[in-house]
């Protein structure tokens, strides 16, 4: 074990030696090590979050043919720091009718629900928080806390826009949670484990994105909806309900909702990389060759993971700044009448094929999985086309029943 192979355990072993040298009980040493590790990980996530503010603003500026922040520091890099300082020294206004305790808990809970996701995120083969054997459900559980934070914020603000925004957001989030949970079953079946690390390792030869491209697409759509980002940003539709559930929040409390959303988007980009693109690994066996052995170095793996996650995050941003907002009835109909049936079809297909093709050679297994996904996709498009022809109406007239065409 050297520093370059296994940095976490290397440092942990050294620190354990130091601390036991001070005659501390071993349980206490473990707790101290955990606290140090967690603090480092969270500080890393928060630093990344600050960087994301800059990236998001630069990217949106380019999409809209602007320059973006460019005054403070080189390329405006210091801009997010200035933003934070501004938010911290802003006056914090609590509206009169607010339910004060709930009002103050909500932003903290919103940020925490995102931060806890990092506990199970494997950054490299030897750099990870914890390898939970129910990791996939842990993601869903953290999302549940986020939903609760939003409904608390909307209710406690004592503002009708906030309440309406919270209801839209929550009905949106809970609806799209169903296809997301169904789709999480597919990596479970393919990798035969629910642990995030296990899923990453199962993809060392073949990405799940190739075995099940439809699952990837459904995951992307439901992840964007879970995040409440455009085109699913009805919760803060400025023209209707001004800003949604966080309308009354000022200063750093608003800042946590904003920072939480950005980090959440990046983290979901990371989960997309882990669940479908092999996470820190997944080089199709290349890393076994001696020439590419450097791909196994943990620090290189961290960079690979961050690059993949950033790519997922970029796709989420791309969708956000290119697609207009959808009406709420369309949004819910799209979920219940299109995404849920489609994801159930993909699930049944994957379950049966993974059983039937289990003993076949690798290439046949992959081809069968990919082909069946292709067939389902084509059939879906045909059904949609037939439906569209049957219910075709002149442009400009739209009814809720047309929402399926989304």
């Amino acid at each position: 074990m050297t520093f370059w192979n296994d940095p976490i355990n290397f440092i942990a072993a050294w620190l354990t030696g130091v601390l036991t040298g001070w005659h501390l009980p071993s349980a206490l040493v473990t707790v101290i090590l955990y606290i140090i590790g967690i603090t480092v990980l969270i500080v890393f996530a928060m630093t990344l979050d600050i960087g994301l503010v800059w990236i998001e603003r630069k990217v949106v500026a380019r999409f809209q043919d602007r320059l973006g922040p460019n005054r403070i520091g080189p390329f405006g890099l210091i801009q997010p720091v200035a933003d934070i300082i501004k938010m911290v020294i802003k006056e914090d206004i609590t509206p009169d009718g607010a339910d004060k305790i709930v009002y103050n808990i909500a932003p903290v809970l919103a940020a925490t629900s995102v931060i806890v996701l990092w506990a199970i995120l494997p950054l490299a083969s030897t750099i990870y928080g914890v390898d939970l054997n129910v990791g996939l459900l842990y993601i869903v559980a953290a999302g549940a806390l986020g939903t609760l934070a939003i409904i608390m914020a909307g209710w406690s603000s004592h503002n009708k826009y906030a309440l309406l925004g919270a209801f839209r957001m929550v009905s949106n989030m809970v609806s799209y949670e169903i296809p997301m949970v169904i789709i999480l079953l597919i990596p479970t079946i393919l990798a035969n484990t629910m642990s995030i690390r296990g899923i990453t390792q199962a993809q060392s030869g073949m990405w799940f994105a190739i075995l099940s491209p439809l699952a990837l697409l459904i995951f992307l759509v439901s992840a964007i909806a879970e995040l409440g980002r455009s085109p699913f940003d009805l919760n803060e539709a400025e023209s209707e309900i001004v800003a949604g559930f966080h309308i009354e929040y000022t200063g750093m409390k608003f800042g946590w909702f904003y920072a939480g959303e950005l980090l959440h988007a990046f983290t979901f980009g990371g989960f997309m990389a882990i669940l479908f693109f092999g996470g820190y690994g997944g080089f199709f066996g290349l890393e076994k060759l001696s020439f590419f052995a450097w791909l196994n170095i943990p620090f290189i793996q961290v960079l690979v993971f961050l690059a993949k996650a950033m790519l997922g995050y970029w796709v989420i941003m791309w969708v956000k700044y290119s697609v207009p907002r959808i009406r709420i009835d369309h949004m819910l109909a799209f979920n219940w009448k299109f995404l849920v049936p489609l994801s159930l079809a993909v699930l049944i297909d994957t379950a049966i094929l993974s059983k039937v093709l289990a003993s076949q050679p690798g290439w046949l297994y992959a081809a069968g999985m990919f082909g069946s996904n292709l067939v389902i996709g084509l059939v879906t498009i045909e059904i949609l086309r037939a439906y569209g022809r049957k219910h075709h109406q002149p442009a400009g007239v739209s009814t809720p029943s047309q929402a399926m065409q989304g």
Partner: protein
Amino acid sequence: MQNEWLYIGLFLVIGVIVPLVPLVFARLVAPRKPNRIKQSTYECGIETVGESWVQFKAQYYIFALVFLVFDVETVFLFPWALTLQQLPLFVVLEGILFIGILVAGLVYAWRKGMLEWV
């Protein structure tokens, strides 16, 4: 106790403390001069009309209801998906029967027009 849950618990505690730090700091340095106008409920520049905790559409509730049932059912599919590889094909069909019952619920809600936004 398992160490992994100890880790998650500590992560949760620190994950609460970290967001609190800037909030506490803001409390110390930010000005606080509240007045009645400033603290009134926001309403695009005009006086607030009516009760803020408005009655909302029951439709939101119907979707939450359908969600609850689906959520519970799909979560229970996870142990099944996990053991798929070790068990005979027959077990896969059991799971699919379970999904079929789920689909029946969806079809019913669809037919009854529950999924329409009225």
